[in-house]
């Protein structure tokens, strides 16, 4: 028995001579939301397809709960939203979702699910007439079928407008709330930042980071940015603090997380010379660039 919803252990996969997955290890506890980041071609979709048992792996092991991927049991436990999903254009949303409900064997309230994703108006319209965002919502509705143990969402926000994205993350939270482990492959860094428990970053088939945002920041040692606005003389302030002059009245300082309080004390010690201080911790975007692009890793 394992208490993990999904375990990926030292998984390797070759495609021809290229190693597309190289020693990937990752695990998700029930109810955990993990963002899987990486460039196009980093291996995110391949990893997801391996978890679904749609493509064979050449080393290591994957377990959904206790069962191997691709088995009937595993498929009953997983839900999947493919990247840029599409359905047969001749079917209506209701018919398509009914098919999925029958295949999953779950008792499903099809109209209720479609309403949950905001498609109640388009229930009996053909999917051919749906917009990209509506198809994505329909794809999301089928993820909600039958309370999966693991949900794998490949670029779920592509094609969605900002409001729909908010809805999407609300649904992801709901899934996590009922104990589903959610793995979200994404490019939308700023959204993922606030909405996930952990972040995993892939680069060229390798897992280069897997931790919480805070720990990743500490590990990367990226500087905190302090923007100090001078009340009268920015040049004197720059000389005093040793930072760079920016946009006329301000000075910018970079400091490590450990030196942050020291720097703030020095700024506070300057008294009236400082009009305002703005502090920016490293964003996920900086972190992502650090982990996903750093050549030497």
């Amino acid at each position, binding site marked *: 028995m394992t208490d993990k919803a999904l375990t990926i252990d030292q998984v390797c996969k070759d495609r021809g001579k290229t190693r597309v997955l190289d020693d990937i290890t990752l695990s998700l506890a029930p109810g955990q939301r993990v963002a899987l980041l990486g460039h196009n071609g980093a291996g995110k979709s391949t990893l997801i*397809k391996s978890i*679904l048992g*749609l*493509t064979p792996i050449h080393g290591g092991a994957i377990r959904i709960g206790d069962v191997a991927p691709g088995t*009937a049991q595993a*498929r*009953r436990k*997983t*839900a*999947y*939203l*493919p*990247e*840029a*999903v*599409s*359905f*047969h254009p*001749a*079917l209506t949303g209701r*018919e*398509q979702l009914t*098919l*999925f409900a*029958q*295949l*999953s*064997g779950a008792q499903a309230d099809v109209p209720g699910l479609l309403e949950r994703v905001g498609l109640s108006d388009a229930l009996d319209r*053909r999917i051919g007439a749906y917009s990209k965002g509506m198809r994505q919502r329909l*794809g999301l509705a*089928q993820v909600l079928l039958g309370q999966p143990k693991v949900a794998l969402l490949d670029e779920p926000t592509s094609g969605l407008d900002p409001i729909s994205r908010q809805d999407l993350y609300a649904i992801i939270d709901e899934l996590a709330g009922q104990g589903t482990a959610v793995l979200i492959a994404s490019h939308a860094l700023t959204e993922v930042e606030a909405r996930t428990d952990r972040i995993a970053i892939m680069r060229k088939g390798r897992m280069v980071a897997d931790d919480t945002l805070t720990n990743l920041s500490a590990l990367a040692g990226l500087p905190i940015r302090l923007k100090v606005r001078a009340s009268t003389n920015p040049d004197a302030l720059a000389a005093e603090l040793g930072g760079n002059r920016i946009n006329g009245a301000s000075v910018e300082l970079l400091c490590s997380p450990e030196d942050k309080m020291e720097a703030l004390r020095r700024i506070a010690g300057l008294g009236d010379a400082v009009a305002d201080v703005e502090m920016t911790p490293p964003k996920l975007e900086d972190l992502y660039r650090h982990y996903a692009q750093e050549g030497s890793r």
Partner: protein
Amino acid sequence: MTRFLAITRTEMLILRRNRWLLVATLIMVLFALALTFAGSAPTGTLGVDMLTVSVASMTTLSVYLAPLLALMISFDAIAGDVDRGSLSLLLSYPAGRGEILLGKFTAHLAALAFAMTVGFGTAGAVAAFFGGAGAESLIALTRLILTSILLGAVFLALGYLLSALAKGATAAAGLSAGLWLVFVVLYDLGLLGAVVMDKGGSFTQSVFPWVMVANPADAFRLWNIAATEGVAMASGMTGAAQALPFWAAPASLLIWPVLAFALARLAFRRVEP
């Protein structure tokens, strides 16, 4: 267990929705009627009723049309889902690949059976009304309909095979056109050439009928012709039929769908969505 029926239901819905069923049935009715009227001339000279002549003409029609209609539905069955990106999603559900294929096959075969029955049935009824029909010609008509459905089943399964092997729906369509051409036109031309070269030697005597009956389209033709004397006379093709045991053509036409479906299933197993 009932999962393949869910697929069947959905596929039937698609065939009705995209008008395939309507168009296929119309094509069958129109061609069958046209041939029945155009082919009614020799009735008097051969001394058979109009339905018999009509069945002979429709047999020739079905050799071309049944494989064509079958391939028109089946080429898209796997490659189309791969192109749309919906196959990976479908395969992430508990339904197995065999169930998916069986579900599609059931729906497609039902649609084909509907088109065949309505098309040949209408023409048969018209021929019987104008030119009379006997018990024998009615049996011949029933046999024509059933064997046409079998022939359709062969090419449905072969279409799935190509659909699983092809790198996309467009490629699958091209391959299907090629397959149709080979089985329905080129195969016979090749055999004809071989017979002419052989000048009635041992190939023509013993090998040729077996090579011919190995092709499901020819097996279909032989079965319908050999079974009814009147039809054989009307079609003027008795030689090859007489050279074979009576079970050869039915065996070929019954083995082919099973074989082709098994091959399609094997090819589908290797598809990575």
